[in-house]
């Protein structure tokens, strides 16, 4: 999927200010951002619910909006109950079977062997977690070329979470499905996604493989045995620092030998770069 320069407004308020994003075939791409940054709006543009004002959204080279051939290969798991409340699960399966040519009923039954939902239950009788799991199962059974998931794991218990992740991984490895998944659990995404886009206020601020994104920041531990030196806040790229006694932890937007030398000249007796987690990067990006 290719998203180029997409702008979208609600009335007079612009939500997306020129978003660029791409998902490679067969990869799992994470989308992270604070609530209200425009993730859900972007996803609704991707699935053909909204029409963007500017820019293109292409899946397999074809635009999505009002294009049933493309949409038949796109799965969409929304962030809240998206189905007809009064339908039963088996009616929902039948609905999907009629709506999507590639719907694989056996695959759905196999998934349900693990999850164990009763077919005679109505959607409104399910808990939030159950209906989210149902949405994932139904959409995965389409064998879509790309599945777009808006926080599909929230509300799921640990066991079902693992199951759904396994389902997704299977589909990616066996059928080459591409995934765009948004989540607030960054720790989770780290071991799941090949690449990530970080979104802030309607724009993509970091993008690339997780290592790429991590290389945008550096976390340094420095020991200043003689106390805080002057000029520490002048160091280029410094985002923030804190200390525990004489051990200072600094967050920088770039680290090089030059900076290491500068720190040593300031009296640092020990300088070490520490790996950052995605969560930390997210927090510092959003400050």
């Amino acid at each position, binding site marked *: 999927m290719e998203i180029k320069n997409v702008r979208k407004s609600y009335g007079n308020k612009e939500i997306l200010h020129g978003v660029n994003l791409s998902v490679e075939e067969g990869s*799992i791409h994470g989308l992270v951002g604070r609530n209200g940054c425009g993730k859900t709006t972007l996803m609704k543009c991707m699935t053909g619910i909204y029409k963007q004002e500017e820019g293109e959204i292409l899946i397999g080279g074809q635009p999505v909006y009002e294009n049933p051939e493309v949409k038949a290969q796109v799965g969409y798991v929304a962030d809240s109950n998206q189905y007809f409340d009064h339908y039963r699960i088996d009616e929902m399966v039948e609905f999907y079977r009629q709506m999507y040519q590639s719907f694989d009923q056996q695959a759905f039954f196999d998934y349900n062997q693990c999850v164990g939902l009763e077919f005679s239950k109505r959607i409104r009788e399910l808990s939030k977690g159950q209906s989210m799991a149902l949405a994932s199962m139904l959409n995965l059974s389409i064998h879509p070329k790309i599945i777009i998931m808006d926080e599909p794991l929230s509300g799921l218990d640990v066991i079902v979470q693992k199951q759904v992740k396994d389902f997704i991984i299977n589909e990616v490895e066996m059928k080459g499905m591409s995934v765009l998944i948004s989540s607030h659990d960054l720790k989770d995404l780290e*071991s*799941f996604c090949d690449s990530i886009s970080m979104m802030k206020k309607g724009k993509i601020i970091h993008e690339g493989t997780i290592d790429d994104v991590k290389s945008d920041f550096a976390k340094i531990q420095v020991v200043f045995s003689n106390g805080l030196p002057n000029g520490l806040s002048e160091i280029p790229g410094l985002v923030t620092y804190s200390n525990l006694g004489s051990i200072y932890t600094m967050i920088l937007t770039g680290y090089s030998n030059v900076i290491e030398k500068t720190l040593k000249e300031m009296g640092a007796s020990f300088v070490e770069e520490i790996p950052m987690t995605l969560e930390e990067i997210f927090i510092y990006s959003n400050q």
Partner: protein
Amino acid sequence: MFRINPASGKAIYEQIMDQVKEAAWKGYLQPGDALPSIRKLAMNLQVTPNTVAKAYQMLEKERVIVTMRGKGVFLSEKKSYGIDPGKLEDIKENIRGQLLELIYLEFDEDKILALIDKIYKELEGEEK
């Protein structure tokens, strides 16, 4: 089966590679056995898939494992273990460095060989 030590100075992908080789050497993995897929292993170890991919790539280069499209990743037959001369050079360099350190600690040749023997037996002993 695989464990990652985040505190160790060694890169994660190297740790993975070592563990695969260890498992193969000890017989936990037989030639033809399937290794977990890249993503599954990434999830289990809580590391990024790219890291696992890198480890598998390197292992494949060293012909320790082999990827069969559509089927998965398998431990290759012992016969196809090639010796990568470049890798051998790296190891020699490594050993050289370690030996120098031991010499510096006033280990003589016998003591060094005894140490190596001890470590080897420890590794063997971990095999039930």
